[in-house]
């Protein structure tokens, strides 16, 4: 019932980008993929969702991706891309309804409105999507993805959210809001795989972390074991010092304490 990628190798043109990456995510958990720019995070996510062809074996809930029957995948998996370009003047609610109707809850129109409330876009239903700000667009897209796989567990099987930098263009309040949504989705039995840049949010909300570096897995496992001084410093090519917040018991990292090497 998990997402498993074994020995994923991706080359675009002649250029090798991922070299034998092993990846496994379980339902009920938030699994963050972190790593420096160009380390292959988006490429890994796109390989896992079947956007690009990859060597190796990729399965979702024991099924391998089948390009001929995409609607089956659509009912158990929502994918939020890093950026979305909309080519016709749809309104926000129309975009969210597209997601809703792509999933198994098409007969419950109130879900679209609830999803917009969840991402803090209540009252934006009738606005044109193309006239929203960048962060608002990203949240509207998240509402679309959420309403597609609204129930974290459907017919006894977990549903999945694949999110590429869901909070990159959001303000801090909405960053927390969206991460809490992801957390709740996992707590209710769904699986969340998110590409993240913010290591503090990752430490706060993720269960598992995969650290990518130059197209290879530098480390994978629980937050405390991956977000360590040595591993991060090596991956990000600067000396980083990780701290522990005394009250919450969560890892945190201050850029002020980093030293350029």
């Amino acid at each position, binding site marked *: 019932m998990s997402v498993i990628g074994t020995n994923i190798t991706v080359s675009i043109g002649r250029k090798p980008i991922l070299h034998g990456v092993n990846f496994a995510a379980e339902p009920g958990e938030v699994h963050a993929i972190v790593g420096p720019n160009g380390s292959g995070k988006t490429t890994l996510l796109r390989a896992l969702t079947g956007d690009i062809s990859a060597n190796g074996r990729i399965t979702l809930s024991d099924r391998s991706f089948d390009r001929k029957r995409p609607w089956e995948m659509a009912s158990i998996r929502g994918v939020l*891309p890093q950026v979305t370009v909309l080519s*016709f003047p749809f309104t926000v*609610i129309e975009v969210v309804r*597209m997601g809703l109707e792509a999933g198994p809850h098409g007969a419950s129109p109130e879900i679209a409105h609830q999803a917009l409330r969840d991402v803090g876009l209540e009252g934006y239903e009738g606005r044109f999507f193309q006239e929203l700000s960048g962060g608002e667009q990203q949240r509207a897209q998240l509402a679309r993805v959420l309403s597609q796989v609204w129930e974290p567990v459907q017919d006894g099987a977990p549903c999945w959210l694949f999110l590429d930098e869901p909070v990159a263009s959001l303000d801090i309040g909405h960053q927390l809001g969206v991460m809490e949504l992801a957390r709740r989705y996992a707590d209710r039995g769904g699986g969340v795989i998110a590409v993240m840049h913010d290591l503090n949010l990752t430490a706060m909300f993720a269960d598992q972390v995969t650290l990518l570096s130059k197209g290879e897995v530098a480390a994978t496992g629980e937050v405390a074991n991956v977000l360590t001084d040595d591993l991060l410093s090596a991956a990000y090519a600067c000396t980083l010092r990780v701290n522990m917040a005394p009250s919450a018991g969560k890892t945190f990292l201050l850029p002020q304490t980093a030293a350029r090497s």
Partner: protein
Amino acid sequence: MVAETTFAPPTDRGAQAWRLHVVLWVLILFVSLFSLSIGAAGAQVRAGLMAWIATDKLDAATRLILFDIRVPRLVLGLLVGAALAVSGAMMQGLFRNPLADPGLVGVGAGAGLGAITAIVIGATLPAFLINALGNYMIPLAAFFGGWGSTLILYRVSTRNGRTSVATMLLAGIALAALAGAVSGILVYMADDRQLRDLTFWGLGSLAGATWIKVLTAGPLIAVAILSAPFMARGLNGLSLGEATAVHMGVPLERLKTGAILTVACATGAAVAVSGGIGFVGIVVPHLLRLATGPDHRTLLPNAALLGAILLVLADCISRTIIAPAELPIGIVTAVLGAPIFLWILLRRRGVVDL
């Protein structure tokens, strides 16, 4: 201080679009009656129709004008208008771009090349083939021409699931030029009788409408219009990009193949019977998107109806404005449509950066 006004469309544009759908059906009825009863023999037709309603008898002269001239022309106008508008809307959905129009980006020219090839080379085909194809030879050839050029255009202008507007328009110009050049060569090869056929065909009007033309173009156009709604949901998804469409369950390859075939069917059939009539495919979907939004589930059927209405009206203008002579309908649609095309172009700030 200026009060801040934000324009918000009504939240339920879908219901509005279905109301418009009903209105368009009523309009089609009125426009059809109007078109039957104006023009050279208009008064006679009107009187004849009145008498028919009153006494249940239709005199022979009126019957001839009505059923051998007026009605086939009306039906052909409705079919061609619907075909042009639907193929425009489909192509715009497929290319994710409101400026894509079969007539503008070389698909019409490709279909034209197909038709010309059929007229000039067709006679040299084996006799059994000519007999088997009959009147369908020209529409079928136009269909293949349109299909080929749509395929080429899509391959050239779409990379990694994104379509570049600039490349599409430029490739369209190149395709149209190439198709035009080859057509020119074929015209040189044509003999006198073929030249006469070509001239009649190339007039770009509904003037030569006959029941035979209706029957040859009708099935192709009907297939296109009836299959279009099945692709509506996919085209909606496609407006978010190819990858996202797949993640929303759209069978991408099947959708693309279907849309390209539909565009080729509708354009090919329309070009085969009426030459090239431009701008209907751009103006109609654009007006509908402004009025009731871009949802293809309502856009496609409404485009068929509005396209039919507009083309029949344009035909009425072309028949009456310089009567007793007739203005080619392509000129009427261009005069009405070209300014709207420019307006779309100017309203989109960055055509280059898409």
